[in-house]
């Protein structure tokens, strides 16, 4: 028996080892988290906490362990982003239109985690339909970042988005780890804002089946964890080929944890000049330089590279993603499930349902997406964006000729206040400037907490690898993590 605070401070790997050593039980660990969730409910990290289910799962896990049948995530209590459909548990995607929607099926990734023994604490809050970089677009309220700015008074800060609930939960110790999904940075940016590790694997590495679709060609699930080792362990449990997802890739899942050798001697790290943006805080640039030095000190070779089409990535993303979203969200029509607001005829019912069911940001993107696919605009927008997307992917392809990984900042700023960018969608979109290129190219990219800004807020560094180069990414991320030695504890941690 350990005290609750000690349990909450354990990383996933540490907890796993303590569980394996029979020093703690899953029920104890889970109870500590359920208690923490109650104590820190003001973070609003969860849309639907599932404490009873968690206790049942923890008990079942302890029983399995007693039988000698323990999976890779056995007994570890995690948060599940509310974009994953979970059987018998409300799955809202952060939207009013899916309020009360309880799937009869389990997403492949969440199913993989339960099969590996994980325990579900609840469904975490998120930007509506994963559209946002702040978690301000959730129908179920803002999520608060557990970090507070030293000079900000008591102003609440955003946790980033769209996986803001997962980020806040892991950072604030309301979950030992959580799932995220990343379409343009939705794992990495909130990870950076909340001082945790967020890993978006290669597109096709994790099945999208059962994840509410935002932009199908970009969406990818990944782990959000306290450290890099936890990320390796959890990704191993999430990943795998799924015949139900035609875009999932049939390739074996390696032992990611074994990739954490700490040895990156001779590894070539590319530093792209295009990621230096005007107006970014000097601390961001400083941290980036620091990161370069850390890797160099560990024996890596630093290579200056160019990714010439980087500046087009953000506009390209904000055409491709809304285009796909406008079509993916057409099924939320009030006919079969979720919200229905009646009208005088079918079209009227559609209009009422979607006007009431979708928030402002979702409506904005559906409109943008509909526009760029319209007759007469398709070539100028969607088709051109697809061509540029190909060029962006080619930039990376060429870069891999001279480097093994690419190091960049994760986001152009630290976490901001609830009100700071609420009225300016473009300023909000700029949050994704460093994360979007890897998304467009489908590449694995991780954010590692690497330092604090002048207000004591976490900043992250991003490592991007070639397709299915997850092991290399994790190895270098581990080295970066060791060198950065990020220890800050959020003020609002449970």
């Amino acid at each position, binding site marked *: 028996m350990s005290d609750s605070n000690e349990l909450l401070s354990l990383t996933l790997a540490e907890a796993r080892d303590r569980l394996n050593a029979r020093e703690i039980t899953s029920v104890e660990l889970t109870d500590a988290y359920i208690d923490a969730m109650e104590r820190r409910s003001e973070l609003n990290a969860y849309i639907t906490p599932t404490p009873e289910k968690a206790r049942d799962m923890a008990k079942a896990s302890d029983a399995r362990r007693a039988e000698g049948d323990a999976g890779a995530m056995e007994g570890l209590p995690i948060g599940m982003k509310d974009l994953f459909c979970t059987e018998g548990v409300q799955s809202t995607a952060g939207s009013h239109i899916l309020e009360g929607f309880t799937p009869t099926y389990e997403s492949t990734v969440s199913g993989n985690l339960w099969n590996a023994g994980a325990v579900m604490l609840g469904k975490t809050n998120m930007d509506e339909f994963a559209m946002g970089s702040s978690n301000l677009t959730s129908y179920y309220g803002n999520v608060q970042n557990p970090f507070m700015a030293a000079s900000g008074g008591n102003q609440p800060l955003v946790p980033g988005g769209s996986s803001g609930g997962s980020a806040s939960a892991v950072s604030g110790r309301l979950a030992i780890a959580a799932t995220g999904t990343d379409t343009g940075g939705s794992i990495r940016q909130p990870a950076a804002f909340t001082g945790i590790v967020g890993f978006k694997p290669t597109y096709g590495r994790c099945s999208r*089946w059962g994840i509410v679709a935002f932009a199908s060609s970009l969406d990818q699930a990944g782990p959000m964890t306290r450290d890099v080792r936890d990320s390796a362990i959890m990704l191993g449990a999430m990943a795998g080929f799924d015949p139900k997802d035609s875009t999932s890739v049939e390739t074996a899942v390696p032992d990611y944890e074994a990739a954490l050798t700490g040895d990156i001697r001779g590894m070539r790290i590319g530093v792209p000049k295009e990621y230096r943006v005007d107006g970014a805080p000097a601390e961001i640039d400083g941290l980036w330089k620091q990161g370069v030095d850390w890797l160099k000190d560990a024996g890596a070779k630093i290579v200056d590279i160019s990714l010439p089409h980087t500046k087009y990535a953000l506009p390209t993303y904000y055409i491709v993603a809304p285009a796909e979203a406008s079509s993916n969200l057409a099924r939320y029509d009030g006919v079969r499930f979720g919200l229905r607001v009646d009208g005088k005829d079918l079209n009227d019912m559609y209009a009422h349902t979607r006007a009431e069911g979708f928030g402002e940001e979702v409506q904005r993107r559906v409109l943008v997406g509909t526009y760029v696919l319209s007759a007469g605009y398709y070539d100028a927008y969607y088709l051109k964006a697809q061509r540029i997307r190909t060029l962006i992917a080619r930039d990376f392809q060429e870069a891999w000729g001279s480097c093994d990984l690419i190091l960049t900042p994760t986001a152009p700023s630290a976490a901001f206040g609830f009100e700071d960018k609420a009225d300016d969608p473009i300023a909000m979109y700029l949050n994704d400037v460093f994360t979007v290129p890897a998304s467009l190219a489908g590449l694995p990219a991780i954010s590692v907490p690497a330092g604090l800004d002048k207000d004591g807020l976490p900043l992250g560094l991003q490592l991007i690898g070639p397709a299915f180069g997850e092991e290399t990414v994790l190895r270098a991320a581990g080295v970066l993590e060791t060198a950065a030695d990020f220890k800050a504890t959020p003020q609002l941690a449970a």
Partner: protein
Amino acid sequence: MIENWAPSDMPICCAVGCAREVGAQLVSLGVNRYILAYDDEGSLRRKVPKMAYTVKGETGDWEVVVGLEVHAQISSQSKLFSGASARFGAEPNENVSLVDAAMPGMLPVLNAECVKQGVRTGLALNSKVNKRSVFARKNYFYADLPQGYQISQYEEPIIGEGEIEIDLEGGETKNIGIERLHLEQDAGKSLHDQSPTKSFIDLNRSGVALMEIVSKPDMRSPDEAAAYVSKLRSILRYIGSCDGNMAEGSMRADVNVSVRKPGEPFGTRAELKNINSIRFVRQAVEIEAKRQIKLIEGGGTVDQETRLFDPNKGETRSMRSKEDAHDYRYFPDPDLLPLELNDAYIEDCKATLPELPDAKKHRFIDDYGLSPYDASVLVAERETAHFYEKAAKASGDPKAAANWISVELFGRLNKSGVALVDSPISAEQIGALIGLIKDGTISGKIAKDVFDEMFQSSKDPGAIVEEKGLKQITDTGAIEAIVDTLIAENQKQVAAYRDGKTGLLGWFVGQVMKQTQGKANPGVVNQLLRSKLDT
């Protein structure tokens, strides 16, 4: 003004008992018919001269231009992108998977069987198989379209250009170009008649695999349009990629019709949606062409629009005009990878194709000496062709077998509403019957009576002939005795004959046949009568 050309307008059979007529020019009310000529065996051989189908309007002759989009449901166990059953006739919403209902997070997975059937169909339509094709989303909102889009193929279909041969009246053929074939999902069904205030949705069809087969605008008459659909249906049924059941909606046609003065560019077309019988295709083209001509000659212009053909009222009505046409916002479906096929796969598909109707038709013409018309009738259904070949082999007289089947058997089957598979007469029995005629056991006339009996009882022809004593009398002595008696008893007629009324020969023949209940060999009777009367 167009008049239906029912098959009874002109006998075009070449079977036993066929009238030998020389075709006449049938020009009725401004419609130029094909001019047909028969050869001396009663078979249609050629058209002389060939004249185009035109419709006479107040300002002169108009040409009709027709192109078709045929939707054919693939005969597969499960749907195009889900594992739900594609069976027809289930209870509402019985065959609906999570994917078909477009539940959140569901993803399509392409059904390999549907791809195979699409490729086989493309090959059977002599069309190019595209090694790379792309599924695209066609976006529109409707209550029976759960995804809010239909997965189809747009810029890169699985099958490209080709052509098929259609069979026209009189054994003529014409090549019709195929523009493309693509795979797509069907939508569900809205039921508006179940409640006064609510509509109901049945998603059984949602996601069922369709092939949309698009022709080039190569047809120039209602008959050509009908013949195209017939041939398409025949080919699909031959290879088993679609059951061709138009009544159940497994095959339905969107018919694009425009009119023009001969030699002018294409006119604006109207699209007639969801026509579900070959007869209606023909009618719809006729009626729509008339409407457009009347409209243009009255100073109006044809709108590019979607129209509904109402066979009860014999009219077409506007469904929606171009102004409220959907902007479908097609784009490649990001849930599906481009479909890539290699040569080996295409060859494998090719190897599964049976002999196709046209190849069979040409073989029947070449090997069995059939007329193009007879051959085209006999190959239209694979089962019929198979039945025919069995009968032809059993009889040793392929032409006679063709006549007996296409006229006598089909006539009786049609009249009694029995399908060929349930025919009371087997192919072997037809062969045996022809054998009895050939070896002189029975006459052609008696054979028809035997055939009637066979149709009733399914008995073998030999047994019927035996039982009923229908064996032909070829015994010259027996016939001669009858002839002698006849001449002795009818001196008045004999005198008239010898005075030059030679037409009385028929009367004498008839009397002999009457006395023998038709069993006397007519050749022997003729010969004996002549020799005795002419001396």
